[in-house]
């Protein structure tokens, strides 16, 4: 099995749009894992039917057992988040609770207990082109974590093995923190989508630094090029100077937005598909050569 991740450092650079199209390009031999759990929206376009759904837990939340509680209120001062409140009885506001457990230490009557925190659901689904995808949805108010990304990746990995496919395509979360590292760890190839803007470039450079440290082979694709030729030129000069591989450029085109509003993939667009298929073919050739 070969794993290929798409990442950009910055949100909104187009990595989901591009990775979904890449999935369609090799749909018969790949599984798609949406690890951008904060903003998992690939399913809006790809999903045909949910095959399996399971709850996902992470961290802790605390509650008060009313039978044991003597309403002494000792715990209130221990909570710096002001999560312990009183109406007629004391209770813990689950939205304010950070799960630290300081209240548990001061409770004299064992009335405070922890439970693992239900933070979302993980889905295995069939896509509109009959491939498999794995994604997760967070309970509102919960955050993505390395743990959740790891879980999505693990289940997707299993799907690749079970269905006898060759590739796992990973749509990574933004940023360069733990969720991103969990997404790109152990991949055979990372495709860095660089948005041709000042901030897109800055974030991509940070990402290239992380990938370099992790010794992950990567290539770059410029997206939304042509809007600011001077920025494009800066980026290309940088890549050349740093000897980073530039695989292709996707020009800015309003067709992008129109296609998405029709809930279609950019590879389906007559205007955009030619250039995109050239880039995808190159990516496929590169990953086939990676050990």
């Amino acid at each position, binding site marked *: 099995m070969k794993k290929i991740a798409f990442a950009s450092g910055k*949100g*909104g650079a187009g990595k989901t749009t591009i990775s979904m199209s890449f999935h369609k390009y090799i749909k018969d031999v790949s599984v798609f894992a949406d690890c951008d759990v*904060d*903003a998992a*929206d690939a399913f*809006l376009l790809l999903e045909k039917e949910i095959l399996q759904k399971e709850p996902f837990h992470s*961290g*802790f939340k605390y509650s008060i057992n009313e039978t044991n509680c003597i309403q002494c209120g000792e715990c209130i001062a*221990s909570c*710096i*988040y002001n999560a312990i409140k009183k109406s007629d009885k004391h209770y813990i506001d689950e*939205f*304010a609770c*950070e*799960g*630290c*457990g*300081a209240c548990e*230490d*001061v409770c004299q009557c064992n009335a405070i207990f922890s439970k693992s925190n239900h933070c979302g659901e993980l889905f295995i689904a069939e896509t509109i082109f009959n491939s498999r995808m794995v994604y997760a949805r*967070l309970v*509102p*108010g*919960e*955050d*993505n974590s390395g743990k959740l990304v790891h879980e999505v990746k693990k289940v997707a990995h299993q799907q690749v093995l079970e269905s006898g496919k060759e590739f796992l395509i990973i749509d990574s979360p933004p940023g360069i923190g733990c969720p991103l590292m969990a997404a790109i760890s152990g991949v055979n190839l990372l495709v860095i989508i660089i948005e041709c803007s000042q901030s897109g470039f800055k974030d991509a450079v940070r990402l290239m630094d992380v990938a370099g440290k992790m010794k992950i082979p990567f290539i770059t694709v410029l997206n939304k090029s042509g809007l600011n030729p001077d920025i494009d030129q800066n980026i290309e000069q940088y890549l050349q100077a740093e000897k980073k591989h530039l695989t292709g450029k996707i020009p800015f085109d309003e067709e992008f937005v129109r296609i*998405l*509003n029709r*809930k279609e993939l950019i590879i389906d667009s007559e205007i955009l598909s030619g250039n995109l298929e050239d880039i995808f073919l190159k990516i496929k050739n590169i990953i086939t050569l990676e050990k």
Partner: protein
Amino acid sequence: MNNISIAFASGKGGTGKTSLAANFAKYLSQDKNVLLSDLDVEEPNVNIFFPDNHKPLKSNMSTINIPEVDKVKCTYCGECAKKCNFNAIAVFKDRISIFNELCKGCGRCFNVCKTGAIHLKKTEIGKVNEYSNESLAITEGVLNTGDIHTKSLITDVKNYKHCEINIYDCPPGTTCPMVESILDADFVVLVTEPTPFGLHDLSLAIEVVQKLQKRFGIIINKSNDNDFIVEEYCAQNGFQVIEKIPFDRDIAKKCGRGEFYYNDDSYSSKMQKIYDHIKGAMI
């Protein structure tokens, strides 16, 4: 009506929530005492609408309590590390390290240390800046680069609220920072765009505000021929679209330059309508 808080939120970035909040605040401040708070502390940009305010009137440090260890008193028993639910403390052999970026300042380690080796030290996570633009007061939270204590800073920015009308510009998304921002709001304005993705993000945001049992209303920004995408959904579920702000090249230009549009005729009546709606909902 005294001291109400109105939060402007959206399921995802790029809906125009900040420009709407700024225009609404500026409009109301013509005859009311208004505070606009920028709670999008990782990317605060309410300020671009108030370019005259380069320097804050006051800049206050925002802190959380992070443990420090007295290595003479520490017996390396490991109790603090065991009790830390955030895994921010590593104890092994005769070493102890604290990872500030994982610490959430709860103080549990301090409480459980039997030898008094831990003391809590105020550590800066960012700033709360105060500005004023004529009759409008503005506060903004600015998180230090690389810091992750977003929630603590949002809470802190709200400690500065003092006006008759407090308007929050919330962080995008539906994760923890957004929830923290609307937790004490009396009314939540959800700003959306008429696209399939906008609708999806809106439905997630509605899930949050309903869970928190907040009063809310929807504004369609960049309204165009596709409004039905949002309107049909709202009609089916009994949600109210308070107002629509049309997609207009002039408005887009003004927003991009950080200029107001509230005083254009058709828009000031829209601002008034939004306010009347919220006032009506409060009774």
